C-alpha cells in the first residue's frame, strides 16, 4: 500500500523537525498533495491514524490536514496551460502532445503545529 510508505516518511521527517526545534508534542501536520500525485486522502488518513499510534510518541494524538494542489499542464506548442485531469496529455487548444505537468505531482510537508 503506497500510502503507508509515505506516511512512514512523513513521520520520520516530522520527528526530525521536532527534535531540531525541541518539540515534544505535535498537534497537527499539514501536507500539500498534488491532484495527480496518486495519493488517496481517505487511505492516507487511515494509514496515518494507525501509524502514529504504533510508531511515534510525539505524533500519537496528531491530526493530519491535507491541502490539495490542482494539476495544471503546460503546452510547449501554444504556451497555454490547462486542467490536467480534464484533458490529459493532449492540449485542448492546439491538440499538441508536447505538454508537461506544471504542478499537481507534489507531496510535501507544509507545516506542523506543535509544542
Amino acid at each position: 500500500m503506497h500510502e503507508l510508505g509515505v506516511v512512514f516518511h512523513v513521520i520520520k521527517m516530522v520527528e526530525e523537525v521536532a527534535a531540531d526545534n525541541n518539540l515534544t508534542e505535535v498537534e497537527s501536520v499539514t501536507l500539500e498533495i498534488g491532484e495527480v500525485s496518486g495519493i488517496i486522502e481517505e487511505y492516507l488518513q487511515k494509514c496515518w491514524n494507525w501509524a502514529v499510534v504504533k510508531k511515534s510518541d510525539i505524533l500519537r494524538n496528531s491530526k493530519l490536514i491535507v491541502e490539495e494542489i490542482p494539476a495544471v499542464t503546460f503546452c510547449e506548442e501554444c504556451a497555454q496551460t490547462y486542467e490536467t485531469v480534464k484533458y490529459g496529455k493532449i492540449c485542448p487548444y492546439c491538440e499538441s502532445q508536447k505538454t508537461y505537468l506544471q504542478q499537481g505531482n507534489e507531496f510535501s510537508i507544509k507545516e506542523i503545529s506543535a509544542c
Partner: protein
Amino acid sequence: MKEYKVIEVKRSIFEDNDKDAAKLREELKQQKIFLLNLMSSPGAGKTTLIKRTITMLKEELKIGVMEADIDSDVDAQAIADTGARAIQIHTGGMCHLDADMTRQGIKEFGVQDLDIVILENVGNLVCPAEFDTGSSKNVMILSVPEGHDKPLKYPLMFSVCDVVLINKTDVLTYFDFDVEKCKEYIHIRNPKAKVMFVSSKTGEGFDEWVDWLRKETADWVQ
C-alpha cells in the same frame, strides 16, 4: 492550555528521498559496488532472469541479491540454489522500497565481498518508479503476455529505466505482442532507454544483456 506554535517545514517527500538516494549511490561507488534496481509487474520473470544472469556471470563477478517482497522467502531460496548469496527484505506491507530501506537492507546483507548487488524490487509498475533507491542503474522487465501497450499505461516506470528487457520472447508467437509498437511506445516516454529482447527460459538475447551489465559494472567501479 497548551501553547502550540506553527513551524513551517516546506519539505518534499520525494526530494528528501532523492537526497538520501544520491548519498547512498555515492557511498556504494566509493565501495566499488554496482547496485542494480530491477523492477517489473508480479510474474514478469525477475527471479528467473536473475538466476540465469548469475549463472552466466558467476565465474567473473560476485553477485548478491536482495529480494524485496511483502511476505515469504520463496525468491531468496530460489536464488540461493544458484550458489549466490541472497537476503529477503520484507517491506511490511509496503508496495515499494525507498533509499532508507535499501540502505538498511545493504547494511544487514553485508556487501563488502560483492561486485554487483541486484535489488529485486516489489512486483509493481507504479510506486517503485517514484522512489529512487540509490541504485547505479534501473532496469525493468516487461514480459510478452503483459502486452505491448504497457509503456503508455505506466509512463513513469518506463521513463526512469536505463534498460527495458522484453522477457518471455519464447512465447511471442502465442500473443498479439507488437514488437515495433512496443519499442515506439517506450521511446515516446524515454528516448534513451535501451530495449533488449530476452527469454530467461531459453537464454535467447542474454549475451547482449550480460554484456551490458558487465560493461556498466566496469564503468561504475572505475
